[in-house]
């Protein structure tokens, strides 16, 4: 017989899913939020998103030399970064954020799979502490649906004023980062990710539950909802804290991680110097993810807990 047979270890079937398809799925999930950002804040938001994605992909292409789109993870990082930026930062702010996210946040640690911190949040963190005036403070635009050429009217964040209506917060017609204002769009994206199996309920569920519960103590039921809907809590819980590389892999670890994110967010919001705490909360919990994984190795099938034996 001259037919050459391929020999490999079992299994001989493989699910069609790969890293690229996951990254594309997450970008699809982010699309409603991005669309809402452009709808509310106009063409400048669109420019920021495109610029961030292109800068991130270019940085990755230079470092990896494996094509422009590659596995899609750089495009996703750029998109995530843009969605947590104000609608119209100077162009160099956006570019520096993307370069830092990819070069320092990701590749300095060894590239995909090896980074400890969420790259998009690393990019944002560097911008916040280096050029705070362009990222936080009075940089927010008054949303103007269909106002593609609207004049800039700067506004304070709802987390500084605490005066927005819950309906506005749900729909997204409040000042804020490009992708964070519309709870509705974010929840649609989150449901898509749940359906596709790329996130599971534990991290976002516990994160948001803790924000709500601590919000109750900050001013009752309405304030609990306000804390969930305002600022970056939903974007952080659904898209940032669930980043596969930087969050725990064990079921119990994910609960601990979600709890930590929610708790630290609210401590910063209620007692800290910044109005918003989601970013630092997630970055801090990223740093303890390996530790959490090691402490929460699941019980094996059929294994009896020490205390039961």
């Amino acid at each position, binding site marked *: 017989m001259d037919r050459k047979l391929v020999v490999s270890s079992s299994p001989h079937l493989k699910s069609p899913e790969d890293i690229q398809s996951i990254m594309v799925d997450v970008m699809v999930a982010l699309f409603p939020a991005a669309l809402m950002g452009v709808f509310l804040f106009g063409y400048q938001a669109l420019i920021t998103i495109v610029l961030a994605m292109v800068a991130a992909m270019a940085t990755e292409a230079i470092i990896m030399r494996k094509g422009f789109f590659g596995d899609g993870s750089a495009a996703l990082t750029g998109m995530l970064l843009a969605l947590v930026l104000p609608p119209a930062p100077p162009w160099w702010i956006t570019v520096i954020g993307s370069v830092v996210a990819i070069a320092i946040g990701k590749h300095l640690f060894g590239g995909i799979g090896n980074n400890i911190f969420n790259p998009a949040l690393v990019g944002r963190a560097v911008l916040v502490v280096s050029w705070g005036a362009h990222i936080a403070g009075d940089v927010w635009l008054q949303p103007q649906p269909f106002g593609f050429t609207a004049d800039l009217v700067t506004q304070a964040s709802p987390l500084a004023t605490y005066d927005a209506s819950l309906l506005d917060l749900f729909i997204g017609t409040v000042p804020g980062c490009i992708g964070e204002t519309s709870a509705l769009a974010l929840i649609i994206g989150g449901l898509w990710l749940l359906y596709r199996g790329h996130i599971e309920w534990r991290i976002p569920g516990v994160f948001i539950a803790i924000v709500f519960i601590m919000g109750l103590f900050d001013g009752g039921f309405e304030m609990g909802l306000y804390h969930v809907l305002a600022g970056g809590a939903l974007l952080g819980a659904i898209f940032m804290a669930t980043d596969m590389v930087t969050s725990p892999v064990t079921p119990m670890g994910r609960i601990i991680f979600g709890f930590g994110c929610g708790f630290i967010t609210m401590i910063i919001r209620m007692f800290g110097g910044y109005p918003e705490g989601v970013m630092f909360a997630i970055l801090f919990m990223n740093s303890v993810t390996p530790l959490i994984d090691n402490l929460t190795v699941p019980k094996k*099938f059929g294994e009896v807990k020490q205390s039961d034996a």
Partner: protein
Amino acid sequence: MSERTFVGGIHPSYYKNQTAGMPIAPASPPSQVVIPMHQNIGAPCDPVVEVGDEVKMGQKIGEPKGFVSAPIFASVSGKVTKIQPYNHPLGNPVQAVIIENDGQDTPYEGIAPNKPLEELTPEEIREIAKEAGLVGLGGATFPTHVKLAPPPEVSIDTIIINGAECEPFLTADHRIMLERADDIVYGLKAFMKACGATKGIIGIEDNKPDAIEAMQKAVAEGGEGYDLEVHSLHTKYPQGAEKTLIKATTGREVPPGALPMAVNVVNQNTGTAVAMAEAIKLGKPLYERVVTITGPGITNPANLMVRNGALIKEIIEQCGGYTGDARKLVLGGPMMGMAQPTDDVPAIKGTSGVLILTEEFVQEAPIDPCIKCGKCIDVCPMHLMPNFIGSASEMENMDLAEKYGAMDCFECGCCTYTCPANRPLVQWIKIAKGDIAARRKK
């Protein structure tokens, strides 16, 4: 209590339509058979025939060298032409008795029916299973008489017949349940009697409603005086693995490192139950079995009754040969079967399937870094951490691999199937298991 399923597992495409509707047909008689002297988990056999001997169909040609072993029988009548090492489905060549088929199928005189089941003692049933060379036909090939002889301190209350057939592509068990339901029930009753079990369960995935119906009918007709149940199980791989099947049908969890008897259960495959029934009713030893020949790379898929030692290349020829783009030959199912470097290899007691895959199934994607998505942990039916075991093994840190549960892996392949980074997790875990086992022996 029946839970119908287990935590974890995957839903691959099942590809069973190719052969599910094809009745079991006899394979054409092989020109020669190559019968390896090692066909079960445990000790091999010594040949008890010599070159030049005339043997008859069903005559014992291999005598076990230990308790955990099973005798081997001639599957044709004819002349022993050679006794020499030959390719073996599990890897290294093994001593094999090669018999030239005289085409007569002259049965061995010693084959005679036993007493009916009602008159047999448990000891006699075990002896019949042993003398017929029965092993687990699901693929693991553990000698049946050993399973039926639990140590005295263990009491077995339940026998589970595995009709899950969760491996994609394979339909041999499905056909056996449709065509031999009465014998399965007969075999189950024999297993129950041998172990003193009070309950018999037949577990079948719910993608085989006709098999469930056939088994329910057979239980109603032939189960008088026995507590028998047919369980419809969720269709999910690896539903038919020993531990997950026990969990799904009884709710019991076999502890890590333990055997099913630790939770008072013995599992048997449908084909084994039929072989048990034939051994009692006819005295027929195990020298043939049902094999599914399937996959996109075979011209005419089929479910065939294949003689022990028939060469796979002859079986493939009989099924119309390879298609043009056939690239991989797997013995067993696609999830746990072994890829073969050659088709010049005999079918043995554990050969449940001959699967031929084409180019589209063998495209090798580059191995990416683990992105810690945790999907392998979600699907692992043993609740292990395949990503960490795999990485530890890759770094040759076998202590760490052991810590994350390498030895509790039964290599179902769910993690590798699922991994979006194309990491060969099972392969790395197998390496770790071999290494850890070797160190434990020292």
